[in-house]
Every structure is written in structure tokens, then in C-alpha cells.
């Protein structure tokens, strides 16, 4: 475990230095321990691939105090049983107007578009963390054959529900935001809904798979 001050009120805790399920399980375990213990000085937790950003009230504790507390809690890391992962299935209509970058992705890899769809929808992904925007889950890992760099120029607006890929990650855009990931499809489901509990369709630690649907099925699922 490595510690680094991020600001006058936050400490980064690194639990490894690679993107892997092994390291991420440690992140998840430490997150769950801190969420359970809720120390009085804690103001926010931001997990990622191999780190947990721990924010604190600087009038109650300092960086070394947080480090001591985290080390103490982390001694239970190995005994911590992670809550069971849920499996979320997301229907996606690939290509066409819903996935404007599918053809280009296929061309980049010298594969038929149908093969890209098969590769994307035949895997179960791990939700590493939520970031970027409310409900935006970073899912990995993509098959090596379809790992694709981001667009050189991000789109100003990505339609909500768009399914994008970037590097070895994939995600569903919850809101109409700018975005640089390549769009290969779209889901009719609402990824984030403030009136729903839980609001986010995917949470950290979930298992996620995609199911290819036709444009007709998309319309049916979309209607309320």
C-alpha cells in the first residue's frame, strides 16, 4: 500500500499499480470497510482501478492520521468478504444511427462489423468504478482484438445510452455529455434515473454483459 497527499484535505491510497481484478478487489474491500466504518473525519471516497481517494476534514485529522487509520482498517482487508456481485444484462442495438463509429472500428481492426458486435457482446465485464459523470461505469476488459484508441476530437454531445469503447474499456453514457469514446451501439435503458432507487443501473463491483437487439426490439424496450 502506498500513500500520496492529493490536496490539503485528501489522501490517495494506492493498492497496486496495474489494472487487474486482483488489485481491484483490494480497492473494493477497502472502500467497503470505510463505507461501513464511516469515521467522523471522512468526507468522500473515490475508488478507481488501483487507488482509493480518501477525502477528510482537515480540521479534524491530517494526512498522517488518515494513513494510520487506513492502515489499521486495511489489516482486515484479506478477511473482508465482498458483497456478492450482481449480474446486469444490457440490451444494445449495435451500428447504424445508434453506433455511428462501428464501421470505422471494424475497419481499424480489419474485421467485419458483425465480429466486433460478437466480441463486444460475448464477454462479462467487471465494473471497476463510476467516474466522469453520475452513473458512468468504467467496464473492462475488452477483448484485445477490439481495443481501440479514443477519437482524436471528442464529440461535443453524445446521446444518452450510447455504448462506447476506449482502450480496453467500455461504458454506457448516462447523459448527453461531451465524449471521446468510439460509439458502437446504444441501449434503450436509462442508465441513471434520479427517481429510481438505486439511481444508477451499474454500481462498482457489478458484472455486466451486453445483449445485441434489433432496432424493433430497441423501440419496444424504449417505450415506457
Amino acid at each position, binding site marked *: 500500500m502506498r500513500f*500520496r*497527499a*492529493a*490536496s*490539503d*484535505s*485528501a489522501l*490517495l491510497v494506492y493498492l497496486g*499499480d*496495474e*489494472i487487474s481484478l486482483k488489485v481491484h478487489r483490494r480497492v473494493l474491500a477497502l*472502500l467497503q470497510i470505510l*463505507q461501513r466504518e464511516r469515521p467522523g473525519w471522512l*468526507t*468522500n*471516497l*473515490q*475508488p*478507481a*482501478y*488501483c*487507488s*482509493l*481517494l480518501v*477525502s477528510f476534514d*482537515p*480540521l479534524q485529522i*491530517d*494526512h498522517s492520521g488518515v494513513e494510520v487509520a487506513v492502515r489499521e482498517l486495511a489489516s482486515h482487508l484479506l478477511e473482508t468478504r465482498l458483497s456478492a456481485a450482481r449480474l446486469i444484462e444490457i440490451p444494445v442495438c449495435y451500428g447504424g444511427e445508434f453506433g455511428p463509429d462501428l464501421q470505422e472500428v471494424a475497419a481499424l481492426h480489419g474485421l467485419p462489423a458483425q465480429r466486433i458486435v460478437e466480441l463486444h457482446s460475448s464477454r462479462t465485464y467487471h465494473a471497476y*468504478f*463510476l*467516474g*466522469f*459523470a*453520475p*452513473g*458512468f*461505469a*468504467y467496464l473492462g476488459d475488452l477483448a484485445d482484438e477490439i481495443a481501440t484508441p479514443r477519437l482524436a476530437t471528442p464529440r461535443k454531445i453524445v446521446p444518452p445510452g450510447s455504448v462506447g469503447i476506449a482502450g480496453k474499456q467500455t461504458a454506457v453514457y*448516462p*447523459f448527453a*455529455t461531451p465524449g471521446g469514446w468510439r460509439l458502437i451501439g446504444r441501449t434503450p435503458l436509462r442508465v*441513471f434515473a*434520479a427517481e429510481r432507487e438505486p*439511481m*444508477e443501473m451499474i*454500481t*462498482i463491483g457489478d458484472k455486466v454483459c451486453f445483449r445485441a437487439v434489433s432496432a424493433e426490439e430497441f423501440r419496444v424496450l424504449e417505450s415506457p
Partner: protein
Amino acid sequence: MTSLLVESPGLLTTVQDLGRPGFGARGISPSGAADPVALQLGNSLVGNAPGAAALEMTLMGGNFILSEPTAIALAGSDFGATLDGQALDTWRSYSVAAGEKLRIGSTRSGARCYLCVAGGIQVEPFLGSASTHLVSGLGGFAGRSLRKGDLVKIRDAATTFVERALSSTTLRILQPRKVVVRVTDGPQFDLFSAESVRSFYESEFRVTEESNRLGLHLEGPALKSTLQQEMITEGVTLGAIQITLSGQPIFLFVEQQTTGGYPKIANVISADLFRIGQLRPRDNIRFERVSFAQARAAWLELRQLLASGDTLFA
């Protein structure tokens, strides 16, 4: 119930309070007032709790009419406001009669001015806060900035008001000190060469037009990190100064993304974050490096000032 009619909304006017911290694991940044010190003082002037919801106006105010007699205060930058043609001072509360026309003009100093109304603005809270999160269209008034014709509800307040103003001592402490922003070392400070660090602390940077509530983009000498490969994405803090591939800094601000993959050279101290909220495009700033102990002392001083009750006022 009192309501506020929006005759014209100004450039970008949103409902804000002190935000909703603590939801990072769900990808939700806190949002909240860009200048929380102005918001808290403005609320104190009209007898509200410091974190009551108010209108945050950006660069240019709007025209508003209140339906019932009440009290208001303008806090933050001076936007040249009038009430039925009479000039209003910033940092002072006024009684307002029903139907009087409140006109708020363009900025004469910084980026933001807060209109605080006695009782505070009433909207459906989202995760415990009235703050508008523009990117996701959540919170605030219908999740968006105000438009002409909107009718905003005001909570009931006490019926007697004391007009009051901030003391000259308080005002002196809050004097715009925009030129120098105090920072502590960021988590990737070690990845910047001595020359880049020197250049960061010795140069002036200019705020660009791209700046908004998500982040402020700066323009200055290009800074280089010694990073050989892409960084693994990690959690990022409010006020983090990340250096993009072009070598230009970006401050992450109240509606920031919660994770990011650029190296951070420094982070604005908690006590100076509210000053960032008053920076306008084309303002020039410099950075001053301080220790965590100094940052904490400055934060304690600001918190004590805000909690000092009646001594804040003239």
C-alpha cells in the same frame, strides 16, 4: 408563498447551495456555489442559514420581481444592481416591496454574484442538496439554468428584517486577491522537471474562454511531465491542477469529473477555492506554493471568520 419571477435570466443563472459532497463512488461531483464564501455571507445578511439556496449569476445578472415583501442581499462580485432604479450595494441587505423591479447588470469585478432572498430558494432536493448539476441536468430548478418566465419558490421567512452590511474589516479580508492562488503539491508533483516546476511558480497564467463550472482552462508556458506512458485513471480532487498533453493547466472545479488520467502538479488550498469562483476569462493569475500546515491554518482562519457571527457586520 413568496415567489421570484424571472423576467430575464442573465447569462447563466442557477440555484446553488453548498453542494452534495460524499457521492464520489457514484460518479457524482458535489456541485454547489462556485464562491461558497459569498453565498454564506449573503445568506447571513438576510438572516438565512449560511448554506441556504440562492441564485448564482455568472458575468451578467438578470431582472427579477418578488411577489411579496421580503429582504434580499447581493454577495460576491459587484454586478451594478438597481431596485426600481435605486442603486444597490453588494454585501448589504435591503427590504424589497412586492412587485419592485430588481435589475442586475454586468460584472464590474469578478465572475459571480449571488442573489440571496430571505427564507432561501425552495426546490426539490437531489441527494440532500438544492444545487444544480448542469452536466447531468439534476438538482436545482428543473436541473437547468433559469429561463425567462420561470417562477422560483421562496421559503417562508421571518416577517421583520434588519437591513445590515458587512463590516469594513470583513470586506478587507475578502478583498479580491485574484493575482496569487495558494497551492500545495499535487500527487504527481514528482513527475515534473525542476524547470517545469519553476516555470509553474514563476509565470503568469491566463484564464481562457473555455472555463466553466467543470473546470477552468489556463494558458501559459507549456509544462512537461516526465511520464513515459498514460497514467492509470484515479480519483481527482476539487481544485486539482492537471496538466494536459498540450502542457496547459486545467483547474478541476465544482462540477468536475470525479476521476481523471492527467498528472496533477498542484492543488488549490481549501481556503482559496472560493477565489477561483470569481476568476473571469482573460484574468491573469500566479501560483504560490505553501505547506499543508499553512493550508490548514488558512482554512481554520477562514472558517473562524465565517463563524464569527455579529462581528462580520457593520
